[in-house]
């Protein structure tokens, strides 16, 4: 006779491959949203550092909201909002957009702190050489200020990488979503979660090592 149909089967090598693919999705979501969020965040941080008044009436409140509302609420809220207003976006796209904006709100504050740490004397030194405002920003203020807050930025980036797990609520097969599905099938939560955790570690660890290497290089 046929083998009995089983809904439950143990964790096999193939599942490791599923998780690896899911880890790739997590990496993709994270890299896209962190990159976009960092570029936007530096721009916002620069506006905040240039003018308290302009900054707070234009983007200050919005950034505060994104920083203060739990990410999971933002994800569900905006994903559904996108669909309600007729923007049919995939969970992946929605996840990247929302995570990106969330990242930009965190990076904005970090970047503002860095840019403000470069004082008037340093800026004047640049201007006195004939550099324009933007040249001074590009070649003096941003490199100095953003390097000073680089460790904080790494913290934000690693946080976002882990927070990308929340995109699972939208149903996109990233690490946590796939891990949950596997748990349901295998009934081996400890093993599956341990493997998924190992994948998160494997994604984060190289980033923090590379960051530490950069910091050492800049300090010398």
């Amino acid at each position, binding site marked *: 006779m046929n083998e009995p149909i089983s809904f439950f089967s143990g964790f096999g090598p193939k599942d490791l491959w599923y998780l690896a693919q899911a880890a790739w999705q997590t990496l993709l979501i994270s890299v896209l949203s962190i990159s976009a969020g960092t570029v936007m965040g530096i721009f916002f941080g620069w506006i905040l550092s240039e003018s308290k008044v302009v900054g707070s009436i234009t983007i200050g409140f919005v950034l505060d909201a994104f920083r203060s509302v739990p990410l999971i609420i933002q994800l569900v809220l905006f994903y559904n909002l996108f669909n309600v207003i007729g923007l049919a976006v995939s969970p992946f796209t929605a996840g990247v957009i929302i995570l990106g904006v969330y990242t930009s709100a965190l990076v904005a504050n970090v970047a503002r702190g860095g840019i403000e740490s470069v004082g008037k*004397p340093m800026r*004047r*030194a640049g201007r*006195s*050489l004939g*550099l324009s405002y933007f040249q001074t920003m590009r070649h*003096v203020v941003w490199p*100095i200020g953003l390097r000073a807050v680089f460790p904080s930025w790494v913290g934000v980036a690693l946080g976002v990488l882990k927070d990308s797990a929340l995109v699972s609520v939208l149903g996109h097969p990233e690490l946590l979503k796939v891990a949950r599905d596997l748990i349901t099938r295998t009934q081996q939560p400890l093993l599956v979660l341990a493997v998924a955790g190992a994948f998160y570690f494997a994604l984060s660890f190289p980033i923090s090592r590379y960051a530490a290497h950069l910091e050492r290089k800049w300090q010398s």
Partner: protein
Amino acid sequence: MIEIKELHKYFGDLHVLKGIDLNVEKGEVLSIIGASGSGKSTLLYCINGLEAIQKGEVKVDGVSVHAKETNLNKLRTKMGMVFQQWNSFPHLTALENVALAPRIVKGRSKAESREIARAQLEHVGLNDKIDVYPSALSGGQQQRLAIARALAMEPEYMLFDEATSALDPELVGEVLDTMRLLAEEGMTMICVTHEMGFARDVSDRVAYFHEGVMEEIGPPDQIFNNQKSERTAKFLANVR
């Protein structure tokens, strides 16, 4: 030539410069002395347009510094400025510090600007520090680096804002020596300074500032030995 006419500067209600009239000729070395808060540093900032002015005019080679239509970035390349806090760019090596502005502002090629930088670092005696980051330099070396950085733009005027005030005493000499060298080479210099020896030996003229007014100006011999103003005499008696 730098021409300053009836210059008034306010910080809020504070009247910092109260009508300064002063001309500095090409090739001249002018030292400005006076107590802290007498407005002498502010005058330098007004000359290269880092501070706005409320009344009067500053002209550099006939171009009005504070006029709206003036391209300040271009005009500033004529005036090198050295600050009390030397403000080396910490993320760049000594060579890159000096090469930055020629490349960015004057559009020189990478190789050209490095050549200029190398020459200027040698000029100030830092040829063995080319690839060193500022954090590994002493205060005196960083200030000489700042001088080289300003010289790399081939300025016609050099403005020194208390260039030695933030230095440890044993490092003051090397910076003053570099400034002396520039003076001997015929650079037009305005030096706000507390170094009376430098002011006396190197300057063509010395100006004494008191509470936003240029109290007295004249050759070093007049200012240091035959003051016309009571206040000048009193100030010098106190700093000696």
